């Protein structure tokens, strides 16, 4: 194991902003900032009345990414692009969509909000997706010699 590209300060600050955002959404609207859940409620709505705040949140997510790029903070980031080809992106996107809906959450909903509420379900979910993601990268990079 070698440690590379270690950037703990922006990681910690960015993480803290994500935590603040989740706390603010809970304080203001009483909802959990789980991205797969918020997006899922737009893609396959359960109630018409519950869609508009989700759309606005998702637009904010894109706007925030945009502001980051143009704010000067993004200067150090030379090239942010996908690391795999389109067929792999399609399989990966499908699995992320299916898995987060079956498992009722993703990195944010389980990994940050759920763990902060000390939910045992979120702990198990987080261990499952962290574990399978680590194994997947190991298999692709070190057993199959891929570039992911």
């Amino acid at each position: 194991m070698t440690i590379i590209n270690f950037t703990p300060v922006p990681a910690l600050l960015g993480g803290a902003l994500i935590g603040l955002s989740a706390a603010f959404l809970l304080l203001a609207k009483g909802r959990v900032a789980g991205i797969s859940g918020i997006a899922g409620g737009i893609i396959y709505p359960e109630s018409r009345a519950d869609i508009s705040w989700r759309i606005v949140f998702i637009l904010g997510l894109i706007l925030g990414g945009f502001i980051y790029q143009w704010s000067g903070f993004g200067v150090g980031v030379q090239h942010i692009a996908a690391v795999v080809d389109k067929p792999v992106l399609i399989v990966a996107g499908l699995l992320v969509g299916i898995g987060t809906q079956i498992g009722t959450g993703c990195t944010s909903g389980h990994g940050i909000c759920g763990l902060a509420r000390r939910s045992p379900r979120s702990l198990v979910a987080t261990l499952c997706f962290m574990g399978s993601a680590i194994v997947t990268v190991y298999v692709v990079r070190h057993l199959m010699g891929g570039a992911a």
Partner: protein
Amino acid sequence: MSQSMKQLLAALAAGTLFGFGLGLSQMVDPAKVTNFLDILGSWDPSLAFVMAGGLMVNALVTPLILKRKRPLLAEFFRLPTKVEIDNRIIIGGILFGIGWGLAGYCPGPMIASLSFADSDIITVVIAFVVGTFAARWVLARRSL
């Protein structure tokens, strides 16, 4: 300003802050994500600090918020109520992790990355939308 308008502004502010945080922390860089997951190879531990930062703030503030009778702009808190560990949480978690490891995109960074207006990102988001729709369509009809 009406209550529903305030709710929308709050959601916009929360989303924007979240997206900016994903950019600043470089969660939007799939190369950084897959290097974080490669603990037995060329490991970049940075993203553990994203989770640590998010968890610290949230774990500190969430209990205080939940002491309130109700949120600022809504009638009540809507939190997940299930507690039991079922097959869904395990199977779903594992499938999601495989997808995350394959391309380095989890839902938040994937959607925030639409700001890069790149055909690869649009591809992975469309696949995510199709997977989400299919899973919710099936789940609405039968329980796993």
